[in-house]
């Protein structure tokens, strides 16, 4: 017995367990000297706990002071409630899973060609998609032509989400309000990371052009090969983010400012909106749209799909980059 106990101190299981519990960090060998020294980490944790405890006591004290016993009961109630939470969560999880599993057992088998989902709708997309939309990639043809209204709604979702993030995180750089100035100073977290890191810069030097070209390729070939505006835009956005982390805001601001962002998004979304409105309008009123579809397989083909992909790509790339800068320092 005692031997086993001795071993347990150094066993892999304990290490694994402490790692899972978040008490130690397996990567603690000096990647980030300020962050992961276990001592400081533990201190931080203890302080956090102490703060929380103090807060709890404070809460009870205030409660006792103001309202007497009922508030203490309430605080105690919250604690009971949290225990109740754990039990509830397991029950709820199992309940949902069981009900849905029961449902799944009554659903048609995956991969069967005779399933109700594989009906005339999919058949028409496959059989006539190439002639009707001009896109070799049937999925792209479907989302940008047959079901374009959904996709337009989707880019609006992205647009409005970026507006909401702007509301929350944007800090006005030329504001005269002192508190906002302080917030700007606080939110600049660049001094937590190495400046002008030579390894990062050299890597970025090689990688950024490749990433950008890959992104542009995905966007432009959206109708010919897997991909399209959204995935390509995300790749482009991550290229921009890499450039920014390597070279800093000053270099980036030569290329990309808030004005550029606003104008790009506005132009792309406006074009998207107008183009799709035109095609909806002509479609519903049974008019000829007069947009040539070109030879399938060529890069300049499939009517509006290519310009729309470019628009979506631009919007997505800008939005992703803007998310990053807003999260980092609340502005561009």
């Amino acid at each position, binding site marked *: 017995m005692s031997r086993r106990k001795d071993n347990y101190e150094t066993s892999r299981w304990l290490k694994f367990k402490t790692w899972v519990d978040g008490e130690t960090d397996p990567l603690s060998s000096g990647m980030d000297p300020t962050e992961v020294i276990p001592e400081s980490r533990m201190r931080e944790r203890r302080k956090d706990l102490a703060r929380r405890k103090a807060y709890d006591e404070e809460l009870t004290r205030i409660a006792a002071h103001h309202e007497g016993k009922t508030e203490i009961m309430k605080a105690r109630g919250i604690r009971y409630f949290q225990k109740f939470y754990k039990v509830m969560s397991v029950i709820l999880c199992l309940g949902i899973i069981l*009900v*849905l599993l*029961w*449902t799944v057992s*009554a*659903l*048609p088998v995956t991969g069967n060609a005779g*399933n*109700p*989902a*594989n*009906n*005339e*709708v999919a058949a*028409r*997309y496959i059989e006539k998609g190439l002639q*009707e939309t001009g896109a070799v990639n049937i999925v792209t043809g479907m989302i940008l*032509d*047959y*079901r*374009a*209204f*959904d996709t*337009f*709604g*989707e880019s*609006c*979702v992205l*647009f*409005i*989400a970026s*507006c*909401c993030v*702007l*509301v*929350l995180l*944007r800090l*006005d750089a030329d504001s005269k309000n002192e508190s906002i100035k302080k917030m700007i100073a606080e939110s600049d977290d660049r001094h937590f990371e190495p400046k002008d890191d030579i390894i990062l810069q050299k890597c970025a030097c090689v990688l950024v052009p490749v990433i950008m070209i890959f992104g542009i390729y995905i966007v432009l070939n959206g109708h010919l090969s897997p991909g399209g505006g959204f995935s390509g835009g995300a790749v482009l956005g991550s290229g921009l983010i890499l450039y920014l982390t390597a070279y800093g805001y000053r270099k980036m601001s030569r290329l990309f400012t808030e004005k550029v962002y*606003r*104008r790009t*998004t*506005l132009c792309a*979304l*406006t074009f998207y*909106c107008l183009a799709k*409105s035109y*095609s*909806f*309008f*002509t*479609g*519903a*009123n*049974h008019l000829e*749209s007069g947009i040539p579809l070109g030879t399938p397989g060529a890069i300049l083909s499939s009517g509006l799909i290519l310009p729309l992909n470019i628009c979506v790509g631009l919007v997505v790339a800008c939005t992703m980059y803007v998310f990053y800068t807003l999260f980092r320092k609340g502005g561009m």
Partner: protein
Amino acid sequence: MSFVQNFPFFSIIIAMFSGIVSSVLDGKKARNLSLVMIAVTTALSAGTLAFCLGTGESYTFMMGHFPAPWGNEIRAGVLEGVTAVFFGVIMFLAVIGGLEHTAEDVEEKKLNLFYIMIDLMLSSLLALVYTNDLFTAYVFVEINTIAGCGLIMIRQKGRSMSAAIRYMIMSQLGSGLFLIGLSILYDVTGHLLMSPAKESVEMLVAEGSYRLPLLVIMAVIGVGLAIKSGLYPFHYWIPDTYGYATPTASAVLSGLVSKGYIFLLIKIFYRVLGYENLVSSQMANVLYVFGIVGMVMGSLHAIHETDTRRMTAYSSVAQIGYIYMGIGLGTSYGMVAAVFHIFTHSATKALLFISAVGLYEVSGDKKDYVSLRGAGYRNPLAGIGFTVGSLSMVGFPMLSGFISKLLFATSALESPHKMLPTLIVLAVSTTLNAVYFLRLVITLYSRRRPEDAPIPETVPRKSWHLRLAILCFIGVNLVLGLASQPIVQAITDGLAMFG
């Protein structure tokens, strides 16, 4: 195809487009654009309504070059037209009524973002009303949710931000359930458009196959949208959300957003799953029970509240309970009553939130009963507005609430099993409503006592916007109360077109 038939499509696109353009405008221009846009879309919806009333039937509109099972579609009929006009009017008045407060609560440079959210909110509401495609509905539900979250947290106060994240969490739970219901539905029917999906559902029901999945679909979609609209056991986010947002946002959220989801739910029940299947599978009874519990519990919570805005929010929970009770009655009369109550509630609740603003202004921005004592004398018009709203909620004759209660009662008589509980609960709930609303109204018109804390002297704002909005809201309430016959007729016709 006549040109008028394009109007629903135009109204959605115009709303979206003005949202997109607003991103480069400054606050004032964005505001004006938004107001113009709401007026134009309301006019377009009115045109659609007139057209549908003229021809007496509904029509579908292809979004693109491909017909029904392949491309997207929207659909317009009498009920859609009425709802769209109504939503437009309420939105316009809510924006007008809260103009000053919006300008105060929102940072100046972010004002245009607020109006972007209003624009996109309206476009998504219109799309939810007109849509004939389930996946389009999902996408626009998401736009609606995100815009709603934006409207709540634009005030940037701690309480409103914690309310926003709570709202977001609950809404995401709802969307997740809705989407998985949609996936199962797609799996068993193979269609996403409502009309072909309904055909397949009918076929499946006739064959008796996939009975369990259909039941789960109903449950999951129903629960998902019920969470989003705040039915009783899922109502925890409502008081914070409505209580701490800026007035326009409170009015829009309580009056329109939750109603948009309920409208979508009714549409899905009628146009996809089949209302008679809902009734035969007992799901209607479940909704009925939840509705009844919500009616009583919401009112009880409201009586406990001392903060009047939270009280109004809790009364929303009770009113949502009314609507679900109407859906759960299982008769077409019950459904007419539920749809009419949607209109009643959104007009009345928006009136209450907007006129309450006028009362808080003259009470030093305090929201408890003591501070509001005598506020009805200090700001007479807001006092009258609030009184009218309260009386309407209680069910005073001539006002809209009376008509909807009457409709609920008469429709309860049609269904023998549910007659007694419905009538009892209606009576109990009306009494409870009267307790808390009339208490507040009496407080508003009682003399201040000498021991009350003095009110900080505030210069009463000469805002004609607020007055105009309150007057118009009172007008809408009276119209709903006095000229209810054509509206009820239109709802009945519209529901018949759904089938």
